[in-house]
């Protein structure tokens, strides 16, 4: 009996000890060390061209991930219509080229805000399940785009977008815009009342409502800002590919979610930051690049990405348990 009690006590203290470990910090430290070792031992990793390639591939996914960060922080989990939303915005942008670059950008940003505002209103005002809603939105956007275009590729009649493919200081413009957008997003999240309210709503929606916060407005705001960020990413996606179809987004939905989660943003909401999403995006881009440089296939890259996200979701869960 005493032995049993001792064993139980030991078990409890052991599990408490495991639960009390600062999981997130430990994981981040392990990932950084592992990446540093792999980078140092991978030929051709430390080259200017490779750094450019990593930054360029991270920038468009990163812009989508920044949009996803707002949605996740406010407690709306994820948008599963990211790829379709970006594809539709890219189509709108290319189809508006004859208006001139600035009006076409404005139209695209408005389209992004509008598409996300409809979803944000349904989530914020009518408590629609964001996962189910965005699955429906993905189908609706695909259907709408196919109906409007007849399935044909959208070709710009005039090419005003080439400036978006430019490389100031030898670095793609999308990288500078991504960094600027991340800083701006962080300021909104950390330094504005709306940003702080988003964390409160994501942490505990009921308590936020009880405290008199305009919860639906805050949710809508998060989705609209997310939509604008998606639209910025879509501009570069369109310019880079020069044409657009509904399939243009490819795997960007899951890439963006992976980047947000890799940055440590809590899927349940209330925690996270834009700068951490930048870190998550870069970590995934670096891992993909390392695997390619070491001769692994695209399949291996997807597998590692999936495993990384799985580990990080578990880690964030354990961390939140520890804090409670």
């Amino acid at each position, binding site marked *: 009996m005493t032995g049993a009690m001792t064993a139980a006590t030991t078990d409890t203290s052991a599990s408490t000890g495991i639960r009390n470990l600062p999981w997130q910090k430990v994981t981040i430290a392990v990932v950084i060390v592992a990446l540093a070792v792999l980078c140092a031992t991978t030929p051709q990793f430390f080259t200017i061209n490779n750094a*450019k390639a990593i930054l360029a591939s991270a920038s468009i996914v990163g812009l989508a991930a920044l949009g996803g960060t707002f949605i996740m922080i406010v407690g709306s989990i994820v948008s599963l219509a990211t790829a379709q939303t970006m594809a539709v915005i890219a189509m709108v942008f290319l189809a508006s080229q004859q208006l001139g670059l600035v009006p076409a950008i404005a139209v695209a940003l408005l389209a992004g805000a509008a598409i996300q505002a409809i979803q944000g209103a349904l989530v914020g*005002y009518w408590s629609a399940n964001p996962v189910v809603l965005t699955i429906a939105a993905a189908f609706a956007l695909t259907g709408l785009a196919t109906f409007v275009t007849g399935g044909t590729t959208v070709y710009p009649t005039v090419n005003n977008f080439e400036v978006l493919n430019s490389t100031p200081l030898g670095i793609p413009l999308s990288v500078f815009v991504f960094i600027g957008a991340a800083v701006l997003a962080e300021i909104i999240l950390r330094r504005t009342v709306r940003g702080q309210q988003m964390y409160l709503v994501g942490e505990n929606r009921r308590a936020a409502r009880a405290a008199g916060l305009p919860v639906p407005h805050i949710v809508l705001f998060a989705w609209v800002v997310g939509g604008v960020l998606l639209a910025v990413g879509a501009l570069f996606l369109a310019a880079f590919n020069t*044409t657009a179809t509904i399939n243009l987004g490819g795997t960007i939905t899951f890439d963006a979610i992976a980047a947000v989660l890799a940055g440590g943003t809590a899927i349940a909401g209330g925690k996270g930051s834009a700068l951490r999403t930048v870190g998550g995006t870069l970590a995934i881009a670096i891992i993909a690049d390392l695997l390619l440089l070491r001769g692994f296939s695209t399949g291996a890259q997807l597998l590692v990405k999936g495993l990384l996200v799985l580990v990080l979701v578990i880690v964030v869960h354990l961390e939140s348990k520890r804090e409670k």
Partner: protein
Amino acid sequence: MSSIHSSRSMPRRWGSAVLAGAMSIGLLAACSATGPGDTAKTEGSLSGETIAFVGYGDTSPWGAYFNSVYMPALEAEGATVLDLTTMDAGIQVQNFNQAVAQKPSVIVTLLVDTQAMVGPMRKAVEAGVPVIVVDGPADPAIADDPGIRSVLSDNVALGELAATNIIEGIKAQGRDEGNVIVVAGTQAMLVTQDRMKGFNKVFDENPSFTILDVQDGNWDPTLSGTLAQQLLAKYGPDGVQGAYGMADYMALPIINAAKQLGFAVGGEDGLIVSGGNCFKAGIESIRAGELYGTATEDPGTIAQKTAEYTIELLTGKEPPRVVTLTEDRVTAANLDEFADRCSKA
């Protein structure tokens, strides 16, 4: 408390009403609309015949143009065409099984997943329904069955033509050797494997030219650009002289990836890039001097040939069991000849 509740439930009720109204209007519109298979029957050589068309969905530009040529061509002959098109492999299996159950005169299909379709195609053969496989070949497990007919793009030739484009382009720069990267379509697909067979064959015949790296771009333009950036960075501007994007929409991101890294494209010493199944954007890129070349497999030509084949089969003319189309190389030298044909998707 109750007032709070009622004020919150009002917008919800309005929202529900709006959604229900929108869905009702949508359903009414859908039910009253005229679908592709509902056109008025006309007298023709295929009057009374039903064709189950399990093709690519309109979300694929290639598929959309194919469908816009193929279906009207048969309807003009008086046939009823059941539109069962989709780009989803799982739904395609369901649609094919549904088609078999309806016992049409023929099932015409463009395969999204060759292996997944072996079972359903076997059911069609057992039910005595002829099947015409279009564009890419059926799985070897069933391809030789007498009940399976094919109108195929010559994917091996398409790979050979792309390799010829690249080697010709590099040689035109005064080089007699060069390294090439490949961003392929989905490598599990027979179409991709056949194109790589042809591509490798030409490189085997030209041993001073080397294929450095082959990556699976999954027919995804965005992924193709990312992979190209990484591969070009890996080998550097002096390490790569050529690149193959298996479709034009995969080749163009390769060009932009090179430009963003500061690599020259085309011209006297730049990267030589070839595409595949020609698209309008590819034609324009050749005209601009960036894409060196592409190859045909345009949807209009194969749609027309498939329509002719279907009509021959259903009017008792017994066409050959397998028809393989002739593919052509497209470069700046013969651009005008193919520009119109290649600008449909």
